[in-house]
């Protein structure tokens, strides 16, 4: 279970991790600037296992993998949004960072609600409101990639012929 940080539509990669910090790719350092330009207190208050819930087109903008990486490293368990920008979506899967699309959950869940997710079924439970929402679970191919903690291990496993 984790608490929810809630944001609106079109949260772009420039606010998730502003370009002025991109001269580093140290995950910890990036995490310390996560969401800097949309929520200055995020990086100092987020705890391991927390969630981000947002509207549509989350992660739009640049291809910087620094964006999902800084959120993952900051301790975010999963981002739930009405929809994701596609490069952010790919990058998240590739680094084994779960993200779920669910329009109803995106609308209904509020800041500071306590929620949990069952990744196999795609069911999101809102413990504060006593409600559940059904998100689309990942297709098996992607589930395997997330299980292996990303594309690198997937490629390595494939090279080994597994």
């Amino acid at each position: 279970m984790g608490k929810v940080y809630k944001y609106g539509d079109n949260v772009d990669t420039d606010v998730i991790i502003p370009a002025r910090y991109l001269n580093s790719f140290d995950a910890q350092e990036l995490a310390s600037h996560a969401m800097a330009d949309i929520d200055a207190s995020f990086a100092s208050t987020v705890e391991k296992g927390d969630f981000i819930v947002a509207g549509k087109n989350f992660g739009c903008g640049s291809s910087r993998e620094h964006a999902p990486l800084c959120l993952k490293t900051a301790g975010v368990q999963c981002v739930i949004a009405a929809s994701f920008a596609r490069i952010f979506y790919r990058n998240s899967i590739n680094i084994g960072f779960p993200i779920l699309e669910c329009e109803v959950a995106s609308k209904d869940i509020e800041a500071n609600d306590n929620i949990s997710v069952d990744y196999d079924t795609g069911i999101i439970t809102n413990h504060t409101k006593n409600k559940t929402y059904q998100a689309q679970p990942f297709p098996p191919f992607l589930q395997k990639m997330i299980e292996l903690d990303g594309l690198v291990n997937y490629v390595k496993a494939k090279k080994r012929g597994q």
Partner: protein
Amino acid sequence: MGMTMSQKILAKHAGLDKVVAGQLIEAKLDVVMANDITGPMALPIFKQMADKVFDTEKVVLVPDHFMPAKDIKSAQNAKDIREFSHKQCLKNYFEIGQMGIEHALLPEKGIVVAGELIIGADSHTCTYGALGAFSTGVGTTDIATGMAVGELWFKVPAAIKFVLSGKPKKFVSGKDVILHIISLIGVDGALYKSMEFVGEGIKNLSMDDRFTIANMAIEAGAKNGIFEVDDQTIDYIQKHSKKSYEVFKADEDAIYEQVIEIDLGAIRPTVAFPHLPGNGKTIDEVEAMEKIEIDQVVIGSCTNGRIEDLRKAAAILKGHQVNPNVRVIVVPATQKIYLQCVMEGLTEIFVNSGCTFNTPSCGPCMGGHMGVLAAGEKCVSTTNRNFVGRMGHVDSMIYLASPEVAAASAIAGYIANPEKVEVI
């Protein structure tokens, strides 16, 4: 059921006769590109998978974002990819003095051609779709994988077809067309999809116009933007490249989720207001508003730093002076364009009118250097993103526009209509 242009290219590279939207495939890559921000981050990931790149010609590294190095960390990042390129004997690494902004550089150097499958660790990799290639931006792990094994997973996209007709009026260019389209469908209007541009209107768009349009497909959320190949495309490819190319046309019965007709002749100069590229207003709407006074103008970037863009801006600035309250930063996108500006006398026009004229770089576009905005400042920029804080302080404002609108605004000191500038 038939396939779209994008689907045909993906099918070919996956070794399949047919693919459908939503299908997951693994496909072979023709070009894998990264820059000084995404490249260094990819190297440790690459090393986990391989010692050698899959092909020394197909892996391309371009230090352009924070280059010439803006600080010590950026210098270190550039050093990392420089050393890697030399060690791996990469044919296509471009040092300062050779380089340009990647998305202007690769077509110019003939590295990308029609029919190819290209990935770049930069979202504006979609630019090469102007040449009839399937080209898309990816992240660091994807690029490291591409460099190591030369193939990658893709989800086959659905598509929207844009049927272009008519001819753009004077002072209307590719930038206005794409800003108009993004305002029409929204910044997630083409999410996960291909934007395919066809129709008899294409012939009235120059290659530079098409690069600008394909460049901003990502700003509508698209996976790729692609133009049907015509004589102009083939002429461009033959002038710039020795590579063989392949032309893919959509099947007659290809499935498109949406078909949108665009009359190029009806498009007005368009300005995207802060903080989304989809907040477009026509210049007439802008003129009906209170004047928007500006502090800075940027003319350059992978969207509008090509020779035609600079010619258009110079034609407006010629004989005029930049407003004393405005800083104007001109950045040609590549060394070749830089030299063209010198030879054609454009540099002289820019400098005489009070603009700075800079070495090729992404520079101010992503708030890196060479023109970062202070709190409260307003900038008219020919770049592609006007997100909060994109070019500097979170309280600065970016208005996206064509080179002509940018040049007219530089003279006026507020967002201005190029039609009203006296030609001297």
